[in-house]
């Protein structure tokens, strides 16, 4: 069992190495990281791992470039902790264009 700490909110939740970080958070009914497709495609759960080690599954290159990965920016739905982790939330529910749509645009 490892501890996952979210920098912005100082929230902490436990997660086993058998779950992804996002799964661990959702199963405990906790919040802090936005929950999207949970499969690596949509990018809303993007986090920057500030410290700690993790295993990773394949994630969509449209949201995580190789540069991102090398700097610890990954999708929380695709990583499992191998140690305690501290992370910052980078992704989020982007404002939909409809909320900013003008008469001309739509």
């Amino acid at each position, binding site marked *: 069992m490892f501890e996952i700490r979210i920098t912005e909110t100082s929230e902490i939740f436990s997660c086993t190495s058998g779950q992804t970080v996002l799964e661990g958070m959702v199963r405990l009914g906790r919040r802090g990281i936005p929950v999207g497709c949970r*499969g690596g*495609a949509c990018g809303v759960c993007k986090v920057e791992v500030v410290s700690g080690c993790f295993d990773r*599954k394949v994630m*969509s290159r449209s949201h995580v470039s190789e540069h991102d990965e090398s700097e610890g920016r990954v999708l929380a739905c695709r990583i499992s902790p191998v140690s305690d982790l501290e992370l910052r939330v980078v992704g989020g529910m982007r404002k939909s264009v409809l909320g900013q749509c003008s008469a001309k645009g739509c």
Partner: protein
Amino acid sequence: MAMTGVLRPGHAQLRVLDLEEGVHHYRDVLGMVETGRDAQGRVYFKCWDERDHSSLILRQADSAGIDFFAFKVLDEVTLTGLEKKLNDYGVKTERIPAGELLETGERVRFQIPTGHQIELYATKTAVGNGLQVQNPAPWTKASENGIAPVRLDHCLLYGPKVAAVQKLFTEVLGFYLVERVLGPDGEGNAAIWLSCSHKVHDIAFVEHAEPGKLHHLSFLLESWEEVLRAGDIMSMNNVPIDIGPTRHGITRGCTIYAWDPSGNRFETFMGGYQPYPDYEATTWTFEGLGAGGGLDYPQRKLHETFLTVVS
């Protein structure tokens, strides 16, 4: 009524991050029938009751999403005619050779203003549903494997310039508008549902800044019980569910949205109604999408993922 021109959604090619995880999902959980694999490594599927060789093709790639969505048209003469209409309208088309997709004839491919690749084709091998006998049974064992939808029904695509796409589909391809959601200021259409048939929609679009995005591929079930059973099967297989089981006010479909292992959303639904081209389109206000029950009629809620989670 006569069905001519564009008949129905034909096939979709989907990008998955892990091919065998994707195959397990679409073959064993969704319950499609695997019909082939090609030299490029793509895997082909059809729904149990579909007649043609394939309606879904999976390609492993480093990003998820949709490569192209195709419609079957009546015959090769119709295909050539629509190609000319597109060209006259100013849309560049290319012909993909027969056989590039297994068991499929030439495809006319073009890009639409929302950034998606659309294809039209006339020929695909009819492999049947296993009931091409005299005095057939009403179903086969394949109809009980996994969720087992009867067909690929439609897709919902996200991208910019939906107004231009509506014009293209209605003025050139012969579709008609069945339902629409107005923009937030009451102007223009933020979302449209278009039909080339007696169905509530064969394709739909939502206005969205990023081009070329997939909201969902949709698969038809035949009863509310089957939709509830689909929800059970998803949960048994740890398939993450987005919304449902519930009913959309828009189209009246009773539905579950969920995601495949690569984060591509799919829908299993039943119901709708049977519009004709002479019907007045149904209008929803932007607020009606949420509070009016457009997306989720029982919950009266605009689930945040609807406008923000796409592949």
